[in-house]
């Protein structure tokens, strides 16, 4: 018999150890799945976790990709984690990401073909504002009418996707693109291009922003009253009210920050790695960032590591599809397992497992 016993205090050791255990469990369960698919499990796992970084031929190509993919994930997940900590569930980062991209790119394209150095900062600001405004819709509705932010923010993702389709086929379409959907390519527009800072490093301004966000969130949560209020609201809402936290302000703050960061991520992506506003430039970063936020236990440093790990499984997953012919769905399952095991192992930090012998009940 297994029995769970609540710990008097959450265990710090297990809070750190569970993500590692979850990764190991994912490798084992994933390996079994790959074996059932008729692939060599060890080779598949090596392809996913090892080859993207150290393979002789693929390494030089995929190493920069690590930062390119991790940057937006971390930037979005940091914003989400602030809300999640306070029990405010912004599920619509994908929508805020898209709107931020449209706004940021829109400002850039409006001034084409300027070469002012002020353009790029203005685009960053516009991207952040766009994401912020999109997140304010569920925020204000929740504060004013008590609507559920999970549903509203999620549904606004589909609205944003329609706006993206419309923008890339209409308003932002490249006038010299011979009628093809999609905007001008920012790679041919230096003032608005989010270029790599060091060649072939994958490091662009979005990655820099992500690192700054990690530091900002870390300081906020550990050293600032606002971060304390965020944590307090998540852990004990009644105590937070007693401590003078204004729930409405906190809702707007955390939704606003997560929206602005997601919007910035979208703007950096569309003007950098993606290059242009197109119908499908967004690749689900806004949703994957939710996994990253939880995988990192809503802790800024954890999110940094989780974002890198997630990016690795993305790149490695693509590589495995290419090299071993694994189906894409198998890679997604593999990523799903990671979240599943992490949440399941979470129980260890709050509970202690006791193995009991069967006792004869009197």
């Amino acid at each position, binding site marked *: 018999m297994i029995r769970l016993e609540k710990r*008097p*205090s*959450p265990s710090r050791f297990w809070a750190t150890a569970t993500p590692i255990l979850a990764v190991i469990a994912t490798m084992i369960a994933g390996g079994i799945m790959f074996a059932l698919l008729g692939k060599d499990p060890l080779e598949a796992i090596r392809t996913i976790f090892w080859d993207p970084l150290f393979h002789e031929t693929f390494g030089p190509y995929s190493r920069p990709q690590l930062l390119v993919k991790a940057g937006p994930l971390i930037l979005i997940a940091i914003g989400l984690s602030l809300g999640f900590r306070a029990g405010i569930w912004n599920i619509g980062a994908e929508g805020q990401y898209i709107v931020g991209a449209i706004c940021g790119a829109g400002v850039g394209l409006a001034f084409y073909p300027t070469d002012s150095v002020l353009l790029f900062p203005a685009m960053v600001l516009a991207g952040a504002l766009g994401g912020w405004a999109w997140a304010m819709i569920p925020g204000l509705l929740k504060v004013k009418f008590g609507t559920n932010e999970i549903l509203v923010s999620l549904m606004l993702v589909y609205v944003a996707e329609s706006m993206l389709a419309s923008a890339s086929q209409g308003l932002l379409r490249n006038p010299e693109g011979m009628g093809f959907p999609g905007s001008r390519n920012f790679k041919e527009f230096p003032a608005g291009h989010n270029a790599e800072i060091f060649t072939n490093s994958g490091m662009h301004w979005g990655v820099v922003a992500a690192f700054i966000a990690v530091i900002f969130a870390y300081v906020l949560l550990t*050293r*600032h*009253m*606002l971060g*304390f209020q965020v*944590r*307090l609201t998540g*852990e*004990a809402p*009644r*105590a*937070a*009210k*007693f*401590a*003078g936290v*204004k729930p409405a302000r906190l809702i707007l703050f955390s939704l606003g920050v997560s929206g602005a960061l997601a919007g910035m991520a979208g703007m950096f992506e569309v003007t950098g790695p993606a290059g242009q506003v197109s119908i499908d430039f967004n690749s689900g970063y806004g949703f994957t960032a939710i996994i990253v936020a939880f995988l990192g236990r809503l802790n800024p440093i954890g999110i940094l590591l989780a974002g890198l790990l997630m990016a690795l499984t993305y790149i490695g997953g693509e590589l495995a599809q290419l090299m071993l012919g694994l189906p894409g769905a198998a890679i997604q399952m593999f990523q799903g397992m990671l979240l599943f095991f992490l949440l399941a192992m979470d129980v260890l930090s709050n509970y202690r497992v006791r193995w009991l012998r069967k006792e004869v009940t009197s």
Partner: protein
Amino acid sequence: MADALLTLDGLRKAYPGVVANDDVSFTIKPGEVHALLGENGAGKSTLVKMIYGLVKPDQGAMVLNGVPFTPANPAAARAAGVAMVFQHFSLFDALNVAENIALGMDNPPHPRELSQRIRDVSNAYGLPLDPDRTVGDLSAGERQRVEIIRCLLQDPKLLIMDEPTSVLTPQEVEILFTTLRKLTAEGTAILYISHKLEEIRALCEHATILRLGQVVDTCDPREKSARELAEMMVGSTLHVPSRAELAPGEVILSVDGLSLKSATEFGTNLHDIHLEVRAGEVLGIGGVAGNGQDELLGALSGEALAPGAITLKGEAIGHLGPNPRRSRGLLTAPEERLGHAAAPDMSLTENALLTGSVRKHLTEKGFLKWGAAEAFALRIIEAFDVRTPGPDNAARSLSGGNLQKFVIGREILQNPDVLAVNQPTWGVDASAAADIRQALLDLAHHGAAVIVISQDLDELMEVADRFTALNEGRLADPVPTRGLTVEDIGLMMGGISGDMTDDTAEGAA
């Protein structure tokens, strides 16, 4: 004994550290309404749980209709003809009335047949109820009807009702009483638990009074006045210590015409509350739980705003939130320690920060001074003898008494001008309780005004200079504790002020 429906003989139930019931014996006859009277913690709930099969007695026996009665669980009790309506309803909001009733039955009939039976029973007993309505749309009184009809469908011989009128309007109480009288006319016995003395006088033929788990008296409530019943319930053992009389200082806090709608569905609305506290004075507010204590504390703490109704040292503060009130000197400590006064999973340092940040200057330009916060937590732990390995431990790892000492200490060490506490020693062991009371008295002695809301009358007699009571969200006029008789206290708690006659009392049926 031939005409007895249920006989209890020497029932005893002990929990670790407390004897809930000891040698309880009485008899319920068919067709009578039998009242069970007693203060909170007198052992009423434990007793009815034993009859309903939720708790097994340690000693003693029960006889139902001449047959030994040892229900192993509520289903067995129901099969034997014992039904119970709980104070808190167990209904699903999303389901309709008939579905809810079917869920509680051991062998539910076909839905159409069940609906018909619900209609029949509700018409027969004057409790109009549509079986197709969704429970979420029903009023508290209608929800109670669902519970009662659920019981009546089982055709009970004994119906137990725990505080049935606490959520009802006076009109609904009248309808309920008509139904209950109809039931008793058909031979059903009712065991009726209530604190409301006038109701008991109007409805019951027999009363058993419990105090500290024991039967202390029995009577026919129709022949007694509410005053006499109150005296029996509270007992004449109240110990009133003589206290050094202080010259009353200036009025520091005054509440004037505070009316507040409760934020929660089963909360109590506050009606036109007036009170004043002076420097160096302890005001005790008694009353049975759920009569507006939480709401009053919330209005004082600033969790609920009451513009214009509260004045602190000459300044209107009713519109201010908790932290501005703290900075002006009004501190509070709510009843619920875990989750309200303290965050369970946060460390004691973080919990010290929770209310201490303003007055102890634990932040600078919004940034936290962790060192100062930890020093403050350590001072609380030392000054109030909080038993814990250190300030890094989570609040939930402390025992109730230790956490309560921490919570009260946290407020007292901030040197408040006014401190309002709700149930300061609830669930706290005797020595910790004595420490907390002493600390509150010391605080008042140093010139602060203290408001103690409590259900423990002995505690209020020990610490309070003046006494008042909350009843259904109304506050009686405070009177000096000195010279207060036991019956005065009981009557104030029952909502009857000294100058009113028993018959015009409010809230009576």
